């Protein structure tokens, strides 16, 4: 009885340790599976070490797209999956990174907008587009940028889960919307 009990206790500890090890090693895989709706896996590239790679604890990079001088990356950090951009003339050199705690993409969050906005009037918090770029889920075929009155200022197609353009209209932008193949709005922020 005693021996059987000790064996059971040891087995319980062993199972717990195995589960902890699996959780520790499979965290990244679980996050990757939550990105299953991004069918563009990209091409593995070597990260060039620098401040951002060090500070964001980036470990691996996949080049999702090159659009002109823009390189778009999916990046695996120590604790989360991140997305970033850089100069396409220097692939692997990451110039910006956004990481998130939660899974991406999901039905509730199908677009990660990485666009650059600018303001040129002090005191006025109406910002216009400087450059458009971002990541979108498989089901998103276009991304719209909206005026404060809700009208569409710009519609950008999504290709290979990436959208981008440097040809942007002037004037205030107040929101972003994701559209499906039929032009139906799937999501809007804010």
């Amino acid at each position, binding site marked *: 009885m*005693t021996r059987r009990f000790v064996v059971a206790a040891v087995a319980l500890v062993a199972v717990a340790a195995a589960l902890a090890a699996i959780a520790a090693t499979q965290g990244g895989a679980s996050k990757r599976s939550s990105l299953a709706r991004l069918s563009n896996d990209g091409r593995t590239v070597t990260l060039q070490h620098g401040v951002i790679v060090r500070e964001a604890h980036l470990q691996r990079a996949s080049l999702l797209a090159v659009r002109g001088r823009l390189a778009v990356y999916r990046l695996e950090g120590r604790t989360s999956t991140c997305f970033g951009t850089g100069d396409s003339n220097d692939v692997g050199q990451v*110039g910006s990174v956004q*990481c998130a705690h939660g899974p991406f993409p999901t039905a509730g969050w199908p677009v990660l907008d990485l666009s*650059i906005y600018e303001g040129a009037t002090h*005191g006025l918090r109406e910002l216009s587009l400087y450059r458009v770029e971002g990541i979108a889920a498989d089901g998103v075929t276009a991304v719209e940028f909206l005026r404060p009155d809700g009208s569409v200022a710009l519609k950008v197609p999504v290709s290979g889960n990436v959208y981008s353009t440097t040809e942007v209209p002037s004037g205030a932008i107040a929101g972003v919307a994701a559209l499906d193949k039929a032009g139906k709005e799937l999501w809007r922020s804010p």
Partner: protein
Amino acid sequence: MTTRAHACILIVVIRFVLFVIASACVAAVIAAVRPASAAAGWCWPSCSTYGLLGAGTSTYNGCWYSIGEVCSGWSYWGTNGVVKTCYPGCDYYGNTRGTILYGFENRDRIRGRFTLLSNRFYIQPYEVGMGGYLRAQVAWYSGPASQINVAAG
């Protein structure tokens, strides 16, 4: 051994397992929200603490927006790093309700990216089409105050 002794051992083992799991969770949370950098040229509110950036926050040093923004002094900045916590709370996706704009500014304009997300963000001046003598900035845009740590270097 008695049945009671068996129960005691079982309880100790279960407590140990729970302690290991809880410790792993705490370590993961601490790692995820660690301030941006301790070796930066400029930090806000310091290089190891978080501050609330809301509509009335200011560093009173001539930022693009006199309130609702924190900014560094002028320098040849290489990177602006922001860590945003889940304060006062996050949804399933890690979004808070406070939107911030992080990036850089010069005497003519302010540029950056918007985010509602909690986690860490880094950006370099060329990503916003800027270079030279700049200020690193984080500005409140909408919603409740965001709890952030900013470090530029």
